[in-house]
């Protein structure tokens, strides 16, 4: 059952990558990165259980925190002029 959950998370991560590459605006890409980070936390925990090593949970905690800090960092600097979305698409 854990292996099925791991496969499901792989599928979702590839969906997030597709959205990150193809998202028309910048915010789609930030959203995809955030989602990818959360799914990575789950993936690490599941892989830890599959391989029988509970030490991986430390890595999962670190990923969760670092993902949060990255997204907050991106948004904190989003008031800079380069993020303005004036109706034209940022490629």
């Amino acid at each position, binding site marked *: 059952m854990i292996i099925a959950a791991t496969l499901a998370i792989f599928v979702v991560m590839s969906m997030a*990558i597709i959205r990150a590459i193809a998202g028309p605006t910048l915010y789609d890409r930030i959203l995809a990165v955030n989602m990818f980070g959360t799914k990575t936390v789950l993936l690490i925990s599941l892989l830890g259980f599959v391989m029988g090593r509970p030490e991986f949970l430390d890595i999962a905690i670190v*990923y969760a925190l670092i993902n949060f800090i990255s997204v907050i960092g*991106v948004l904190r600097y989003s008031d800079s002029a380069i993020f303005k979305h004036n109706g034209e698409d940022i490629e």
Partner: protein
Amino acid sequence: MGTALAIVWMKDLLSVIMLSGIYGLLSASFFVAMDAVDVAFTEAAVGAGISTLLMLVAITMTGHKEHHSRHKPFLALAVVMVTGGLLIYGTFDMPSYGSSMAPIHMQVAPRYLNDSMQEIGVPNIVTSVLASYRGFDTFGEVVVIFTAGIGVLALLSAVYRSEEITKIHLLNDSMHEQHLILRIVSKMLIPFILLFALYVQFHGDFGPGGGFQAGVIFAAAIILYIMVFGMSTARRVINQPFIKLLAATGVLLYGSVGVFSLFSGKNFLDYNALSANPIAGQHLGILLVELGVGITVASIMVIIFFSFSGSHVPPKRQQKSTGENNAS
């Protein structure tokens, strides 16, 4: 690989930064799948988190569209392809992935794996190799990090003029009353992150962790504080000269452990000289050395972030914010 291709193809540098964040997380997942826990830890903390943040801050100061280059670099492409082809041809002679007859498994690694528990007594063999068997390499790495911090300081501190700084920081701070939810959640999370960094630092003997990872996590907590609460509050809390002193102290701590061993009549960085019982000496040596690494890495990351973001000038807004409360 699709991510790497997309990184090269895109012209908008902000998207490139986002994609390189995904790339860092992907490589960390590969390391986890290959059962290399410490490397995955460091890759997660540094490659996916801090470098995305630092690149983003750098881009807010430069432009965000890639320059269209005038000439087509065909000669460079040909050279790269020939070299790459030769390298790939060379890998056919190497032993297959994971085979136990590979030279890397025959010479030094069995001695580390078999004797580490008796000689050093630390369950995490990565830490024992990093801090004791190859302690001199780690000393070099710490000095490299310290030099990078000095380089950044040398390049970026020369641009300051003090009245401009105050004006920039006032502009920066006036926007932080709007981010109420972020401030409250960060107030709850930051003590926990600092505590977790200390846990990773001292638990590095028994599980994944150690000085580098702990330093990066510590610096990430302080960077979160700076981002959410503003530069002037941060400058009041974190004294700039004190942080510079701390960075030097870490390297000094590492070096003095080595010099102490020298004065006791043994080799440089030989931890058996630190105490009567050699195993206790190894434990003490590893503890001090990892502490030095953690202190230096944390302070250098904070210094680099201060230098980068101190020059960030936010644009003026059309409507003034109506709340004029205090920033704390």
